[in-house]
């Protein structure tokens, strides 16, 4: 009897909780309706008609924006947004070709291919002031100014823009960079040497303009939030506080090509859990959700599934000299054996099962094309194909040359679930196809892997590379003797010579250069087996069928929404 008070109390509490929850649900439903009405600016009667005109896209990002300062940006999120809120001299088109954007037509190029003169079209910043040639000169020089401590400025400009290398090495002042505003509308860029892919670089985030007066006035505050920035692209950034998990892109009424832009609003939220992203997608709150891990398999047959091939290639990096001592991988036959000893088709379709495809070359598919639209990937055909017999033959030859009958090697990989699954597969395949081989797996976080790479403290590493510009050279240059990314003691004077020619004597002879690059690729993949291509990364995501015209790019910003629209919602 007395204790029943407690029971009453508990029951009351439960009832109140349920009541509150139910009320809350109603509120939420009302809020959503009101929001929609406000956005559409319409009443219920006309809602159906207006639905198609509601040009709002709701997207998910998997990470926050680290910075929107084009001189400091180094990450995919930053480059992606900059590509949509700003515009440089060039922009990647819907066909992924670099086409003039703020540059009014093609520039004039001096005969030696060193001096480019761009004339700017009439365009404005989001504050209504015109974009001038000085905005480019200022932004690029700012990216080279040691005080800015830009990482990508010197990385992208060295060897490209005149004096950039000297400035990076502290041998020249940043003011001596080869870029000059001749007048308000004319920009002169002097190159270090002829660069065949220079114009595609002009679409990259690091080469965007910045308005000097604005940046200086903002001081330390510049790019700290969406208010402390200026925009000259299809959209402006709004409601971004610098570290938050949500922001918006709004159509930029000052954009010179605003007629093309149909979307009025893009709402972003950072969601890191695939399950949550899928729930938001299912609920209709988001128009696109990327799928990872088991979700990719679960939705494999969904009609709203979209697969996209990225331009990142993953490969075995064979270290020939570990901590100063030669490894068995210094033997070309051992490298060939490992390259050919695992079935990458199965790896891509069964183990990864995320839209990735097996890689038979080092330069990815759908990345660079010649004038006739032929993919560079096709020049060399399939290399590094799985062949257990050839692998075994090379293995035995290699072992004999080394004078051993068995070998123990370590594979260094990442600590994610996918990496671990993949490494297990390698171990099983390699040990199964190469008698006498013992593989040990070392799975470490990314930072640790970088450290081990720098110190060359590994045997085989599962590494990946995404391009920084639209040219095979961004991949090929990795394996130059003593190059910063080499870290595996690969050295072939013939290869080095090819690299020199590709960006030197052949720079203006496009067909010969193309051929030389193909030769270089064949050399590292099929002749020296310096690296063993594994797969080209793919993406799987769910996308509502009414989302149209989103363009995915092979380098720089991942997507363009300039041409995107909503139809049939």
């Amino acid at each position, binding site marked *: 009897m007395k204790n029943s008070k*407690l029971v009453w109390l508990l029951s009351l509490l439960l009832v109140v909780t349920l009541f509150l929850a139910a009320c809350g649900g109603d509120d*939420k439903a009302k809020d959503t309706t009101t929001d929609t009405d406000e956005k559409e600016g319409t009443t219920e009667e006309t809602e159906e008609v207006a639905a198609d005109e509601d040009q709002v896209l709701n997207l998910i990002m998997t990470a*926050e924006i680290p910075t929107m300062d084009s001189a400091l940006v180094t990450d995919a999120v930053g480059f992606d947004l900059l590509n949509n809120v700003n515009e440089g001299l060039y922009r990647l088109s819907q066909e992924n070709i670099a086409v003039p954007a703020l540059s009014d037509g093609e520039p004039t190029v001096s005969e030696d291919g060193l001096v480019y003169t761009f004339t700017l079209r009439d365009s404005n910043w989001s504050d209504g002031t015109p974009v001038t040639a000085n905005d480019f000169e200022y932004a690029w020089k700012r990216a080279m100014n040691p005080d800015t401590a830009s990482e990508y400025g010197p990385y992208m400009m060295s060897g490209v823009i005149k004096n950039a290398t000297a400035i990076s090495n502290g041998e020249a002042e940043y003011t001596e960079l080869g870029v000059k505003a001749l007048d308000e509308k004319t920009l002169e860029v002097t190159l270090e040497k002829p660069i065949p892919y220079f114009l595609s670089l002009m679409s990259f985030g690091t080469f965007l303009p910045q308005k000097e007066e604005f940046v200086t006035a903002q001081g330390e505050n510049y790019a700290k939030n969406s208010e402390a920035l200026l925009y000259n692209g299809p959209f402006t950034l709004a409601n971004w506080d610098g570290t938050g998990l949500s922001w918006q892109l709004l159509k930029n009424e000052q954009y010179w090509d605003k007629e093309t832009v149909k979307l009025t609003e893009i709402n972003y939220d950072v*969601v890191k859990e695939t399950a949550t992203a899928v729930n938001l997608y299912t609920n209709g*709150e988001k128009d696109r959700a990327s799928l990872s891990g088991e979700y990719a398999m679960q939705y494999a047959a969904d009609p709203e599934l979209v697969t996209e091939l990225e331009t990142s290639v993953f490969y075995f990096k064979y270290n020939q000299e570990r901590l100063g001592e030669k490894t068995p991988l210094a033997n070309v036959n051992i490298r060939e054996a490992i390259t050919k000893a695992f079935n990458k088709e199965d790896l891509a379709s069964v183990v990864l099962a995320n839209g990735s495809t097996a890689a038979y070359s080092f330069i990815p598919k759908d990345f660079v094309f010649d004038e006739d639209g032929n993919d560079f990937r096709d020049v060399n055909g399939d290399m590094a194909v799985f062949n257990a017999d050839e692998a075994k033959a090379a293995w035995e030859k290699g072992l004999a040359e080394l004078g051993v009958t068995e070998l123990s090697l370590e594979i260094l990989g990442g600590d994610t679930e996918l990496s671990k699954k993949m490494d297990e597969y390698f171990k099983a395949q390699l040990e199964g196809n190469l008698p006498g081989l013992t593989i040990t797996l070392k799975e470490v976080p990314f930072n640790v892997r970088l450290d081990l790479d720098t110190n060359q403290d590994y045997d085989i590493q599962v590494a990946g590379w995404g391009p920084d510009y639209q040219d095979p050279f961004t991949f090929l240059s990795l394996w130059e003797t003593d190059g*910063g990314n080499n870290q595996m003691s690969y050295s072939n004077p013939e290869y080095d010579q090819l690299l020199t020619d590709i960006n030197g004597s052949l720079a203006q002879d496009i067909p010969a250069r193309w051929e030389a690059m193909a030769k270089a690729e064949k050399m590292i993949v099929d002749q020296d087996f310096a690296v063993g291509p594994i797969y080209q990364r793919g993406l799987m995501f769910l996308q509502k069928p009414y989302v149209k015209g989103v363009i995915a790019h092979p380098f720089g910003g991942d997507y363009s929404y300039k041409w995107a629209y909503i139809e049939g919602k």
Partner: protein
Amino acid sequence: MAKYITRRVFYMFITFFLIATATFFLMKALPGSPISSASKLSPTQLAVVEAKYGLDQPIPVQYAKYMLNLAQGDLGNSFQFKNASVTDLIIDRLGPSMLLGTQGLVLGVALGILLGMIAALRQNTIWDYGSTFVAIIGISIPSFVFATFLQYWLAVEWKIFPVGLWKDGWMSSVLPSIALAMGPLATASRFIRTEMIEVLSSDYITLAKSKGANGFEIAFKHAFRNALIPLVTVLGPLAAGLLTGSLVIEQIFAIPGIGEQFVKSIMSNDFSIIMGTTLFFSAFLIVVIFLVDVLYGIIDPRIRLSGGKD
């Protein structure tokens, strides 16, 4: 009492200083660099970037500078968020974490106490078994499983609450708070049940009963108060853990909290955020432990804060 508090505060500062020092050196022992594209930079350029962040100085100098800045309340700038100060970041991210933590803790502990009391008062009845069952579920199933379950049923299927995101005001905090509450609920109910059963069988309760005190009086006035003491002991660390953010729950509900940021900072070697959040968490825990000790004295006057000399 005043003497006790002064002494404790002094020790709190020493503890904080030691934690700051230990974290600093441990962090410096982490492999890798906080500079995201370090592998792409030439040695000269890397030196320029390192100089900007003071990473080119010898570690003792960096330590001294850090401590000096810390004394002035300056936690430095983040490496991940290139223009954000760590203090701003912590302040921005703390609100949601604290709200969820407080709600989760209050809800969990309140319901846990209720359940525990019912179980103790109705020992070996269906009420007791029911409450034990709930506690076992709460302890054995991790909060993220509850979170996923709640999200699916209450948000996706029944559409009562938002799926996630921090946009619908208080409604956004309901599901994550409930998920967070399950742990403290289970802990509190178990502690209260065990303690109350023990207290209820003690002599003074028998005396109270014989004097004609009713069940309600016995439960609340006598048994409950004594049963609270062990609960307060575990409540301190529990509160610190909850209020300073739960990584998994924040991630599942896409909430801009501090817990998730802390883990990310370790993965990316963001020294300033690692230091900032660790120090913040430690300070919080130190204060909570202190408050718990003070609470002991309030709940049970037999526990003398100054060792019986007052």
